[in-house]
């Protein structure tokens, strides 16, 4: 029973981490139609920024503020300035994806060149813990879950109940039509890059502090699973990314407990493929489901 509870609780924790990043990733893709493969490296850069700017602070609220700010700025720079320049020159979707890969590698190896190959670590702090039916959850993990829930709710409110959310959905659905309705696609995309980057930064610092140590490749490794959650849920669909993250989180924990730990990643990918065979568009697909890469 404790094991089952552990699967659920730590599955939710894993999902929470994934969901924060996956929602940012899929939101940005849905609105800008740019497959940003530099997302993982931005995530890493945010951990480095937080680590450096706060003096290795493990205060999650300060860390999230710094992470969100640095992620937003980086994302805007990369997405709106660099990628935007290529878009204005008529680059193809594949070309843009390659540009983001190049940016990703530049960021990753740039960090490695500056920092060296060693990992960086936070100082061990004694976190408060709570016991739920024999399962011990740390305050940091609980905070991550709460932050994820709040972030998901905020994104849903933004998309469904605000004028800007309507502009985002309109831009995602039909840029030309959005323009005729007095929506500025450029401004909408810029703000979307900011929001996406902020979520990326929050995800990064929660990941870095949660793991206790990190390196220049931490975000890139995590990005693969994060992108899988987005694809599973339906690319471009924030609610889908949440569901995708939850499935991957719980399936991987269950596989670790029931089969063997080394099968946890495999199990998550098997589920991903199985779902996509049945629903190629992902579990949920809405406003950006039928889009090609870069109009």
């Amino acid at each position: 029973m404790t094991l089952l509870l552990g699967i659920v609780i730590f599955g939710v924790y894993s999902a929470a981490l994934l969901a924060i990043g996956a929602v940012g990733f899929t939101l940005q893709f849905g609105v800008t139609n740019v497959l940003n493969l530099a997302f993982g490296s931005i995530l890493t850069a945010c951990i480095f920024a937080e680590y450096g700017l706060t003096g290795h602070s493990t205060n999650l609220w300060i860390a999230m503020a710094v992470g969100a700010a640095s992620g937003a700025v980086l994302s805007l720079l990369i997405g709106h300035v660099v990628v935007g320049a290529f878009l204005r020159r008529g680059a193809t979707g594949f070309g843009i994806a390659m540009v983001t890969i190049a940016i990703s590698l530049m960021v990753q190896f740039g960090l490695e060149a500056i920092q060296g190959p060693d990992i960086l670590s936070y100082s061990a702090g004694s976190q408060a813990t709570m016991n739920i039916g024999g399962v011990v959850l740390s305050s940091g993990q609980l905070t991550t879950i709460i932050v994820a829930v709040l972030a998901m709710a905020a994104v849903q409110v933004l998309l469904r109940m605000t004028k800007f959310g309507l502009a985002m959905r309109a831009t995602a659905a039909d840029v030309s039509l959005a323009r005729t309705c007095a929506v500025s696609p450029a401004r909408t995309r810029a703000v979307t890059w900011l929001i996406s980057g902020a979520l990326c930064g929050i995800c990064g610092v929660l990941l870095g502090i949660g793991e206790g140590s990190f390196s220049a490749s931490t975000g890139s490794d995590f990005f693969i699973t994060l992108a899988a959650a987005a694809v599973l849920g339906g690319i471009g669909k924030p609610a889908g990314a949440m569901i995708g993250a939850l499935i991957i989180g719980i399936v991987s924990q269950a596989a670790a407990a029931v089969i063997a730990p080394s099968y946890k990643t495999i199990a998550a990918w098997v589920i991903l493929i199985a779902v996509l065979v049945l629903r190629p568009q992902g579990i949920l697909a809405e406003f950006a489901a039928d889009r090609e890469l870069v109009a």
Partner: protein
Amino acid sequence: MSRGGHRARWSAAHGARLALAGGLGLTLAACAGSAATGGGASPAGASATLEIAAFSPFTGPNAPYGYFQYTGCVAAVHAINAAGGVTGHHFTCTIVDNRGEPADAVPAANNMVASSPHLVGIVDGDSGLMSATVPLFNQAHIPDLSAGGDVQFDKNIYPYFWRTTPGDDVAGYTLAAYVKFGTGFTRIAAVFGNDQAAQGNVPGLVSGARHLGLHIAVSESIALDQTTYATEVQKILAAHPQVIVTESDPQTAGVLLGGLKQAGWTGPIVGTSGTLGIDYDKAAIAAIGKAAYEARFVRIIQYAQQSGLAWQTWKSALFAAGSLVKDPASDETAIYAELPYDHTTMLALAMLAAHSTNPVTFNPYIEKITQGRTVVHTFAQGKAALAAGKTIDYVGVTGQVSFDKYHNSAGLWAAENPVTNLPEKLVSARDVTAAEGH
């Protein structure tokens, strides 16, 4: 050795310098010509500087490991050159960056062999690369003195391969021996990363536990670099182990140890040589704190003396090597820098004994210089003894070498404290033999 690591505090600038040096080394090697070494011809002219390649990762996540190989090599070369070299030749250490990945290591090895006309020996130590690179070195007739623990080489078939560290499966037996004779506990949780190097310990540990009457309460092969191991930790603790035996990469270890702490584990943790290195230490300390790491964690590694003529000579050479060695004070007790030091010294002594710098000629003498009648502890001693017509038995800083028919030689082991770096308990050959069921 299962995995790279080092105790030295090396800075980003030093890492960049090493990476740059690696690039320069490769560039220089590429410009040096294309004549293959070996094949029966003398590799060098009358006064050419002979190359020993430190074939290791100098970039990428295992880059700190390359530092060990290079440090040992340059210290030995300094001592050899100071003693006049070999038949008029001096030596140099070349950095060859294999990035710790077979996909990078194979072209790096091919390039090194094809473009280094004065290459006379290789020192390496990465378990995961040996099956890909050792055949290449053997084909090129370049002696390779290794600290790699790949179990496939327990019954090595390559005549140019020599190993003075046991295979990773032997390391597994030493873990069981330590638990039995060092802790007195009987219930073990075996928690190893699912990579090849870490898993190499498991068969020996399981078999050793059986021979010694220990019980493997739970054996978990964990996927690397996950965000949480909480479920795995629950399974581990549910089996009620008394001691946890483990190896994984640093970041995995950080998350795992943090999970164990969170779940309330306060028992001892025994690591392998794969837990050696500043990155592992940092991750572990970040996860459980320095005091707990010092009090509850030991790692079982090959033991090298820290006194006597061999060690004093090694230490002097280390400090005399100047800026090529970043932190000699830390490296002087680093077994995985001492191994390539002895390996490089053995290569030079074999050349002296064979009266040749041709690898084909001196390769068999790598074993012969460990079987003679006169015990020597330094290159200078060995050179003098050989010049006097004696046969030598080189007992270097890592101790007695005794190659079996597979060119393998095991050493002493100790449980080392990860914070003080001092041995807490020796694991004798008799204990290991008992674990092996002999």
